[in-house]
Every structure is written in structure tokens, then in C-alpha cells.
């Protein structure tokens, strides 16, 4: 078995972090270092071991365990590379932290909503995911957990610079807020690039979720803060929520316009995407994601009767490389993955879905 049973178990639960509207997910991560210990990048293995031990002692404290009743811990070195890839796809581990490093410990809630990595770039990396736009609730959970930990761990803190992190770009709050957003209509209208570029002025960045040759496969983007010093966590989160909500509204408005003005072309695109996924025998990730993006557009607009947004979320995860290997429980080559991915799509879309129904295609939220 190439996957850790705990990780397989979380993957089997499905896409709990993917919501329904254009704003699919909210991810929060908080970086902290333990006072008096060198940061992991320069620390000796003895120091890392001490930091991990202190971190675990704090996590096991009754006050913290009450907040995370169903957590488990695994030494990072015991996770196979496919395990780590799967964790990245489940949004529980950052891709930059998948490499081998001494004394790393991965701690995770069984429901897949919270993970903690010890001795990554920083001694503690607390991470939480939530479906849809959910900064306030997620921050409340995160802040409560951090406060409980801080009662038992002295974090490296400077009165002027805030929490000291290995990356100076995270100094201050140590908080990274990220929204996963689906923007197909703005992409078709040609306005997406300009809108996302303007986020730079607000100290935010927009990156493709699945970058393929510099483009965003599946029209999915990650919008994150680039600044963490000089602004309260709540203020940053609410400012970002406002901006991301405005982009989401613009996406919905553009979708409505697209459907009302070019309904036939829209239905044609939905039908072709559905036809491709239902009848494919070999399909690479990027092509699958682009087709799924149109399918989501159709599902959001009521074009499909049987293909729901939940189906879409499940397929979005299932078509990714580590999920395919996990499902098959064996390492797959890219060619084998393309074939297996196609068979998964055929299996999932074999139902009696009729041709896209032109009467059902209504502009969303109109």
C-alpha cells in the first residue's frame, strides 16, 4: 500500500473545502516560531527535535485538544511522496514543504479541516480550510487555536515587527489568507487579466491554481495577501473578502450577460465539455480541468439536470494525479493516469444526462 491509511481516509471523505459559488474555498495559514530556538532552516537536528517536542507537548495540552479532538500525528519522513502529493491536493500541506527534512511532524484533524506542520519553514505552520468565502469563521477558529497554543508555547515576537517568521514577507501577523476562485466568464470576456493585475495595488497576488504553460487551467485562481505587517488580521481578511466578493459578483454578472447574449454558444460549450468528459479514453489534467471548468459554469447556470456542483467538486479532486493513484492504490505513470482519469470520467458521467437543456440555462442569481 503506497498511501498512509489516515491520509487515504481523509481523501475518501471528499472535497469538504470546495464550495458552490465562484469563491470556492478559503485557506488560512499562520506561521509561528518558538522563542529561543533557531528557525528550522538553520537549526541543528537537536534544536529541531526540541522544537517539535515542545510543539507536540503544547498540542497535547488539554486546552488545545479540546479544540482538536480528532487529531493524529505522523512523522513527515514516514509519509511517502504520493502521501505528500495527496496532502497537497487536499490543501493540507504546502507544495514547498513536501521535501525531506529532519524532525518534521505532520498533525492533522480527521475531518481534513485543520493541519499543523512542525519544522517546515517555521517551527509551526497552522493551516485551516473552509468551503466558500469564510474568512471570519475560519479566522475565529484559527485565532482560538493559536491563543490556546500561545498559552503553552512562547512564540518569537518583536514588539515592533510582530511574530518573527523565517520569511520576512510573513513578518508581523504571520498570516496568509488565500481564496480559491473560479473565473471562467471573466476569462472569456477578456477582462480577467486586467482585474487580477489590479489586485497588486491592494497588496494581493493572483496566481493560477493549476499553472500550465503560464495559463490557469480550469480558470481557477488563488488570491492571497502579500503583506502581513502593519494591518490587523481581521482588517486584512475583511478587506480581502470585500475585494474577492466584488470580483465574484463581476464574474456572475458577466456569466449572466454571456448567457443572455450568446446562449447558443454557451450551450454548445457546455455540451461539448460534457461530451468530451463522458466519451474520453485518454485525457491529460489540463484538458480535463478546462472541460470541468465549463461543466461548472453549466452546473451553476442550471444547464445540467443531473450533474450537480457537488459532482463537480468531487471530479475536480478525483482527476488530480495523487487522487488517481490513491484510488487505484498504485503509482501511475502520466500515460496511465490519463487513461485512468478518462475511465473515471466515463464512470461518473455514464448517467442519463440529456443534451444541455436550453430552457434550463438561466443566468445565475437572476
Amino acid at each position, binding site marked *: 500500500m503506497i498511501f498512509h491509511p489516515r491520509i487515504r481516509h481523509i481523501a475518501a471523505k471528499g472535497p469538504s473545502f470546495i464550495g458552490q459559488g465562484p469563491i470556492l474555498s478559503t485557506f488560512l495559514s499562520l506561521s509561528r516560531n518558538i522563542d529561543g530556538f533557531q528557525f528550522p532552516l538553520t537549526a541543528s537536528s537537536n534544536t529541531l527535535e526540541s522544537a517539535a517536542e515542545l510543539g507536540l507537548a503544547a498540542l*497535547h495540552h488539554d486546552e488545545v485538544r479540546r479544540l482538536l479532538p480528532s487529531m*493524529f*500525528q505522523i512523522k513527515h519522513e514516514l509519509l511517502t511522496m504520493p502521501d505528500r502529493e495527496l496532502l497537497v491536493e487536499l490543501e493540507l500541506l504546502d507544495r514547498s514543504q513536501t521535501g525531506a527534512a529532519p524532525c518534521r511532524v505532520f498533525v492533522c484533524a480527521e475531518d481534513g479541516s485543520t493541519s499543523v506542520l512542525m519544522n517546515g519553514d517555521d517551527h509551526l505552520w497552522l493551516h485551516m480550510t473552509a468551503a466558500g468565502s469564510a474568512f471570519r469563521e475560519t479566522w475565529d477558529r484559527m485565532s482560538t487555536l493559536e491563543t490556546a497554543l500561545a*498559552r503553552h508555547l512562547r*512564540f518569537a515576537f518583536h514588539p*515592533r*515587527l510582530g511574530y518573527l517568521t523565517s520569511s520576512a514577507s510573513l513578518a508581523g501577523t504571520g498570516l496568509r489568507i488565500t481564496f480559491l476562485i473560479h473565473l471562467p466568464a471573466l476569462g472569456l470576456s477578456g477582462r480577467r487579466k486586467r482585474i487580477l493585475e489590479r489586485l497588486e495595488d491592494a497588496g494581493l497576488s493572483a496566481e493560477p491554481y493549476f499553472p500550465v504553460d503560464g495559463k490557469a487551467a480550469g480558470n481557477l485562481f488563488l488570491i492571497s495577501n502579500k503583506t502581513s505587517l*502593519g*494591518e490587523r488580521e481581521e482588517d486584512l481578511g475583511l478587506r480581502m473578502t470585500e475585494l474577492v466578493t466584488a470580483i465574484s459578483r463581476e464574474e456572475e454578472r458577466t456569466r449572466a450577460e454571456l448567457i443572455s447574449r450568446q446562449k447558443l454558444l454557451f450551450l454548445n460549450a457546455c455540451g461539448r465539455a460534457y461530451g468530451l468528459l463522458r466519451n474520453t479514453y485518454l485525457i491529460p489534467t489540463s484538458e480535463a480541468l478546462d472541460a470541468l471548468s465549463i461543466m461548472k459554469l453549466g452546473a451553476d447556470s442550471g444547464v445540467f439536470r443531473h450533474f450537480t456542483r457537488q459532482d463537480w467538486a468531487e471530479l475536480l479532486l478525483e482527476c488530480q494525479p495523487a487522487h488517481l493513484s490513491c484510488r487505484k492504490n498504485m503509482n501511475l505513470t502520466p500515460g496511465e493516469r490519463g487513461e485512468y482519469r478518462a475511465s473515471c470520467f466515463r464512470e461518473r458521467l455514464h448517467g442519463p444526462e440529456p443534451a444541455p437543456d436550453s430552457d434550463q440555462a438561466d443566468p445565475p442569481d437572476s
Partner: protein
Amino acid sequence: MGHAMMLCQICKANPATIHIQEIVNGERNTLHICSDCARKRNLSEDDEASSHFHEMLERLTQAIASSADLKLAELFDQKKPQEEEQVQDLDCTVCGTTFQSYKKTGKLGCASCYEQFGQLIIPELALSHHGSVHCGKTPPETVEQWQDPAVSERIRLRRELELLGKGLDESIRREEFELAAELRDKIASIEAKLSSAELIPDESASEMSEKRPRSRGRRKSS
């Protein structure tokens, strides 16, 4: 006493109205000239002075410019090129991270790096963030760290191990082999104590709520 009516010693035509006394090599010479010749001579002297003035101005301008640069550099806390080179060589005395490596990777090695590179990185942080003063969560006033004596003891032992390791290297370098052997034995003894404790148990088989982390080291101390 006034001068008697004299002719200009240069043109020998006009009456001399200007009388100039020069002392050259301790000898006093007197020159009586008319206003026209004086003007001609003065003009040529002005030309000479003018070229000197331009040189001086140029020098002054350069001096002002360099002093202005200095003041601007002070104002923006920038370093002059020579100082910049020195800055590039800065390294953290605690973790050894160099300022150059920070510039390359954006990563710092320990909390002290923020103190030691502070003058250089704070202006950068102020530009790339929303200012250079933290506002947000702060740590609680009381922290109950170090409560577990077994954990504290292991942390102390690991720190001792690192110091002994440095001492061992140093004693070998100085060829003090008796001391090196003594340190080696101490290191082996501490390593044995530490390895007897399973510090980070893998809880893949059972939930944390069912199994709290215990180690042989901890049981020993209780």
C-alpha cells in the same frame, strides 16, 4: 600726498590716474597707469580669475554634490558603496545567516537576524508591507512553557550536546586529545540518554485522544 601729473607707464600717452603698488620678492614696485590701460589689464586679469573661478566653482559643485549625496544617504539610511559592500558581508552572529543569502532567498535564520539586519530590512519591510509596525495579535502575558520536567531536561541535554560538540571540535583542532576523549565520552553518554526516549511517536495507528505522547525518558523521571 598726491602724485604729481605723470604719464601712464604703459601707453606713455594718457595721464596716469591709477597707482598700483606691488611687492615682489620683498621689493616694492609702483606702477602708474591710465584708466584705459588699467581696464585692459584688469580685464585680462579678470579673465584669468574667471577661469580660476570656474575651476573653483566646479570643485565646489562637486563637493556640494558629494556632501548632498552623503546627506541624502543619511536621510534614507542608505549606505555608501563601500559601506554597502561591508553590509553585504554581514552575517548573523547567532545562526550564521548572511545578509547576502537573505537578499537572495528572503529567508532569515533566527529571531536575532531581525535584530542584526534590522536597519537594513526594516526600511524594506516598510515599503513592501503596510508600514513597519505590527498591529494585530500579541502573545498572552503569561506562558506556561517548560512545565514538563522531562521535556525541559531533554532540551537542556540537547543544548549541552551542541556545546560539547563544539568543544570537541576545538579540542581536536588544538590537539588536546585527552580533553577530546573526555568530551567524546560525555557526548556518548548524553546521546544514549536521549536515544532511549521515543521523542516523536507516530500516532498513525491510534488517535491522539486515546494515546498521549509518552517516552521512556519521561517515565524514567516520574
